[in-house]
């Protein structure tokens, strides 16, 4: 969850920066450093989309009420079912 809250927060921050750069309130120096921050956020967003890979797990509740998480192997679906 954290990664993707991260993604949404990153995108929100990017939008804020893009809006700020579109206005004239910033002086040029601030605009430049904001742009650099924006580039960093773009890299971060792309990283979250391209490189983070989700796991597939199975959650089992044992008879004693304990919860166990194990990796689950799910084969890819073949062509669409009718």
């Amino acid at each position: 969850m954290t990664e993707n809250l991260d993604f949404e927060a990153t995108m929100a921050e990017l939008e804020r920066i893009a809006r700020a750069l579109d206005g004239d309130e910033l002086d040029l120096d601030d605009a430049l450093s904001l742009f650099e921050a924006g580039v960093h956020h773009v890299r971060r967003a792309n990283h979250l989309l391209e490189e983070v890979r989700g796991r597939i797990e199975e959650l089992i509740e044992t008879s004693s009420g304990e919860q166990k998480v194990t990796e689950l192997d799910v084969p890819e679906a073949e062509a669409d079912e009718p």
Partner: protein
Amino acid sequence: MPVSELNRAVRTVLEASFEPLWVIGEVANWRRMDSGQCYFSLRDDAGQLSCVMWRNEARRLPTDPDEGMEVCVYGRVSIYEAGGRYQLVAESLEARGEGLWRLAFERTRRRLEAEGLTDPARRRSLPAIPGRVGVVTSPGGAALRDVVSVIRRRAPWTHIMVCASRVQGDGAAREIVAALETLGHHPGIDVLVLTRGGGSVEDLWCFNEEEVARAVAACPVPVVTAVGHEVDVTMVDLVADRRAPTPSVAGEIVVPDGEELRAGVRRLSASLSSGLRGRARRAEDRVSRVSGQAKDAILGLLGRRTVRLQHVGARLELLSPLATLERGYAIALDGSGRVLRRLEMFAPEDRFRLTLVDGEVHARVERIKAADQGSEGATR
């Protein structure tokens, strides 16, 4: 012959004479005992038949039939020896068409509806980008494979957590409820998918069970259901936050399309650059605007100075002795260029110059005469 012996003898004859058979009639006086067995009558215009359904058979009924409902009962003819009454021992009971299933469904639906659980206003919105998706289904089923494939393709970063349950038959409802509770309370789960592939009405029945529907409604995170095919609407669909027609569509509903997200990042990235470029261009424009204004200001100032200079020149002109000379006056200067203004500066025979507007006259003093005394002085 004792009563009980006769009853047993008739029973043996009766049971031997009839194969198990289907009997059609209307249900009357249906009673379900605490022990689970059911007593009722079947009747038509002209007759009536006592029936009993034992606990194990009665448990398989989706619901109790309504009074007067037309049903087919499969069973064998027998005698209740203690009462000496002849009866049908029912193994199964079916309403015409889907009657009993439909009836059970409608009864549950009305109860849930009365509590507001099917109210569309209860539906929660799904998270835009879930980090962790919980799936309740049979771990070997095609439904899980479909959901996982779609999530993998669209949003490969998503964690998927599966909680296994049977999805048909006795005990399935309880397992689904347990799985929903386990996953629903597991930290970090953003949304749940409850799914199963297609099947008969009986196969899908556990998704119509009241306890399952209630577990969906009570789930602390939003639930998307995808049970059976598009035409199958089950009870859980009515209380879910979203209903998907198939497991694949459920996958599409719960996660965003990564390609669209990437396009969004590209768009924002481009607008960052263009924003900065625009900001720089506006800064340049401002510089040139300001310097233009400065130039105008200087030229304006110069212009005003020029006009003033002309005025001053005109006034200087007025003060110049040349103007006076122009009017016919002359200036007397001695040899060293001193202006001779008073009589005492002249002496007889002194040489001096007279400056006129167009040249000089060299002259000598002949006679000096004061203005008031008429003293002599002349210029030669």
